[in-house]
């Protein structure tokens, strides 16, 4: 028996680079070094600035929904950096790939597989989950999520999956069958190595974590709303979060199950998806896309929620067509479960089946169209400020409509037969994922950042980043439509037709612009932290906001609301401001009960990562050790006592009164002055628009 399973020194990219020096192996070794250097620098910086204790006390063991949300987003941004870098490397490689190219075919395959998996499950998902975590309890007037500790566990599971993908860059190789990991190619016969196992054990915990998040969000929204916050008074972001949560509950189990079935095939010789002995890979395709299609709407609905809030706030108007937006959101959530087959129109079912799913797919574009009109009508004659979120919104309007239209084109099975598996498809899904999801989340971060941290983000750098994202997106992905129509297959490590070259060069140049956009995004955060004194908005309402979350100080205290608000209308805070009655003094404060800090989430994260790693490398004793640890942690939690802390009423009163006093002493700013340092977070609008 080998103590370390299949592990040995030859599985690192460094030994590859030594044994076989080439551009290909150097790129791999370089990427691995970056991971190690990054990890080590983080450790050094934490020690240098003596941040270990605050990191442990205020973040890793915190059950506060805002902090958990921030941790999700930090995780997503780190993974985004890797994902974008991989995208750029792929574009660079392909621009040189006429009759060859610097990277080996397998290496290129690893790149699009990790890139796709990371972008969907470890960038877009955590961005969405993080933002919902931060915003929803504040918007509905709750103190926290329904299950704060489970919230931590969800984060732990997602982080474990992400950690494993990061490890795969340094130890061993990742899977080469794309983010969908279709068997039988990913089965033991064709992929005997550890690659698909890395994929499986990253996806399974992330899927479980998202399912638990979905339960948490749904229960919070159903059961923890403030008095008077009826369904039809909920802000639209909360509505989209509710629909996303329901979809997570139903759509995550299929991917967990299909991945585990693939694991049984690989580890135990089952025959779910193999070529021989009665396996059937079409079962995999069906189950995977029962998750996969709803997933894209899980991601984009919260972005729609952001657009709704941004459009209303930055035009100082009530959202146009609230009811139609809610209806559209619910319709999308339902219809999105009925279209999964459009991902394999060409796999041999009858024409009538194809056309049924084609029509369902086209129908789903209708509610989205309704939404776009609603947002435009909201902006119409509003008092629009061209802040960073609005720049993203503008980019979204134009680009997302293009992406949506190419989706309708692809929904036609006869056309899909021509362009499926080409770069046309790659252009299409990036065209909805980047202007839709990514822009939405970046806009949402910009919009709610001051609420969480107490200072705004720098507008100049933010605008630069937004501009670069828009331009970079167009340069990188619009050429891919052309290449797709010319017949260039997706996932091609090389090609022989020189006619592809001009568009390839253009796309590669675009990738450089996107790298600039990413750099500008991070610069925005750094510059803003430096200038946090100028940008501070402690009074909490920097954008003349309309919904409950803006009626709290910034940063929000751990308990969110000194007293739970009573809600009597939609856009309650905006109406109070119009009527001149915001910030009413409170006569009686009460003690507040909050969950105590716990190491539960962190323990689950470590044990899950350990289990996954050991499974990948067949280190059975470690599997048993870590998995038993995981089970015991959960059982031990059932015996935990003393899980709550009490914030005394006096402390709540002290902080709340201090905030009210500060408001009373401030004169506020008009909407035009929002982006100046006069903005301390008190709105004194010059006109009311109806």
């Amino acid at each position, binding site marked *: 028996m080998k103590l370390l399973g299949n592990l040995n020194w030859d599985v690192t990219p460094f030994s590859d680079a030594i044994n076989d020096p080439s551009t290909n192996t150097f790129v791999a070794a370089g990427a691995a070094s970056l991971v190690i250097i990054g990890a080590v620098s983080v450790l050094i910086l934490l020690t240098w600035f003596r941040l270990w204790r605050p990191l442990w006390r205020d973040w890793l063991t915190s059950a506060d929904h805002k902090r958990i949300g921030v941790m999700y987003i930090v995780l997503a941004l780190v993974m985004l950096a890797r994902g974008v870098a991989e995208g750029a490397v792929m574009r660079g490689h392909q621009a040189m790939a006429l009759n060859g190219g610097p990277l080996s075919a397998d290496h290129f395959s690893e790149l699009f597989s990790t890139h796709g998996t990371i972008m969907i499950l470890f960038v877009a998902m955590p961005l969405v989950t993080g933002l919902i975590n931060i915003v929803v309890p504040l918007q509905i007037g709750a103190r926290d999520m329904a299950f704060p500790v489970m919230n931590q566990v969800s984060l732990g599971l997602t982080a474990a999956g992400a950690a494993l993908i990061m490890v795969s860059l340094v130890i061993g190789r990742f899977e080469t069958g794309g983010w969908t990991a279709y068997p039988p190619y990913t089965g033991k016969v064709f992929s005997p190595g550890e690659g698909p196992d890395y994929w499986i054990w990253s996806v399974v915990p992330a899927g479980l974590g998202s399912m638990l998040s979905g339960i948490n969000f749904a229960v919070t929204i159903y059961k923890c709303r403030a008095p008077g916050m009826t369904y039809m008074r909920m802000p639209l972001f909360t509505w989209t979060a509710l629909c996303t949560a329901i979809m997570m509950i139903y759509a995550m189990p299929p991917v967990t199950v299909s991945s585990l079935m693939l694991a049984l095939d690989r580890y135990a010789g089952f025959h*779910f998806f193999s070529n021989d002995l009665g396996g059937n890979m079409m079962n995999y395709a069906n189950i995977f896309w029962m998750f996969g299609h709803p997933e894209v709407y899980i991601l984009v609905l919260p972005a729609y929620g952001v657009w709704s809030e941004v459009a209303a706030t930055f035009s100082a108007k009530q959202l146009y067509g609230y009811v139609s937006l809610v209806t559209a959101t619910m319709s999308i959530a339902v219809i999105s479960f009925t279209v999964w087959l459009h991902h394999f129109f060409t796999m041999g079912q009858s024409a009538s089946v194809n056309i049924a799913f084609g029509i369902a797919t086209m129908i789903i574009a209708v509610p989205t169209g309704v939404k776009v009109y609603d947002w435009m009508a909201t902006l119409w004659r509003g008092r629009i400020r061209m802040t960073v979120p609005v720049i993203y919104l503008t980019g979204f309007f134009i680009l997302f409509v293009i992406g949506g239209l190419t989706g309708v084109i692809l929904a036609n099975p006869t056309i899909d037969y021509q362009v499926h598996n080409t770069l046309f498809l790659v252009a299409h899904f990036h065209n909805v994922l980047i202007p839709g999801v990514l822009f939405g989340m970046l806009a949402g971060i910009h919009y709610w950042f001051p609420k969480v941290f107490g200072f705004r983000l720098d507008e100049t750098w933010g605008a630069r980043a937004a501009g670069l994202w828009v331009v970079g997106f167009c340069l990188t992905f619009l050429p891919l439509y052309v290449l797709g129509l010319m017949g260039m297959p997706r996932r091609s490590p090389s090609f022989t037709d020189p006619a592809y070259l001009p568009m390839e060069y253009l796309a590669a140049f675009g990738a450089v612009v996107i790298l600039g956009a990413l750099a500008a995004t991070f610069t925005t955060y750094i510059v803003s932290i430096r200038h946090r004194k100028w940008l501070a908005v402690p009074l909490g309402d920097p954008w003349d906001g309309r919904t409950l979350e803006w009626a709290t100080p910034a940063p929000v205290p751990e308990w969110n609301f000194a007293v739970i608000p009573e809600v009597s209308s939609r856009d309650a805070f905006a109406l109070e401001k119009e009527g001149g009655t915001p910030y009413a003094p409170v006569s009686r404060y009460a003690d507040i009960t909050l969950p105590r800090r716990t190491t539960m989430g962190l323990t689950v994260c470590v044990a899950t990562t350990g289990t996954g790693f050991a499974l990948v490398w067949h280190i059975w004793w470690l599997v048993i050790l870590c998995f038993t640890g995981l089970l015991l942690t959960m059982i031990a939690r059932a015996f935990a006592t003393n899980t709550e802390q009490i914030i005394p009423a006096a402390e709540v009163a002290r902080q709340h009164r201090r905030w009210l006093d500060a408001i009373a002493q401030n004169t506020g700013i008009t909407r035009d002055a929002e982006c100046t340092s006069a903005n301390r977070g008190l709105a004194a609008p010059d006109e009311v628009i109806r």
Partner: protein
Amino acid sequence: MSQNLHPGLNLGASHGDAHQQSELSVFGFWVFLMSDLITFGVLFATYAASSTPIAMAGGPGPAALFDLTSTGMQTAFLLASSLTCGMASLALKYREGPRRIALWLAVTALLGAGFLALELRDFADMIAKGATPMRSGWLSSLYALVGLHGLHITAGLVWIVVLLLLIWRRGVTDLIKTRLLIFALYWHFLDLVWIGIFSVVFLRGLA
């Protein structure tokens, strides 16, 4: 939330917090069960799609493997355990004391263990006949579906042990009352899934 939301739990009429908390947990668990039902649904669908001669790949089929006496007995065990689980809930409702509750829970666990023992014996018999999960796609999906239910039962047994320990150490507190209700939901849910398995897999397999 002032109304008495879970009368069967005797949380007390005036104790608002306990009601609110149990409302969250119970509702949350219902939602989890819906999600779990999807998990089972996927495996049911896989099983149905694999119930073809091609997926059986020339290996043994239902007629050679299924033993209705044994699965019938398993069904009886599980249904009886649901009854005793219900008795535990009644003991809670009519305040018959922690001993009674613990007793019914223990009987539930024993019946569950009996079910599991029979199921494992069936698996062993099948394997002895060469019907391992590696033999065919159909067998893979059979073991996965039935095995997943068995795993759930195993988890339920561990859960009962934890509940018994908690009752022994702390008595029947509000928190434990809520957990008893949630456990009962889980256990009855597994019963329901088993009825599905018994009908779709075993009865239809021999029909």
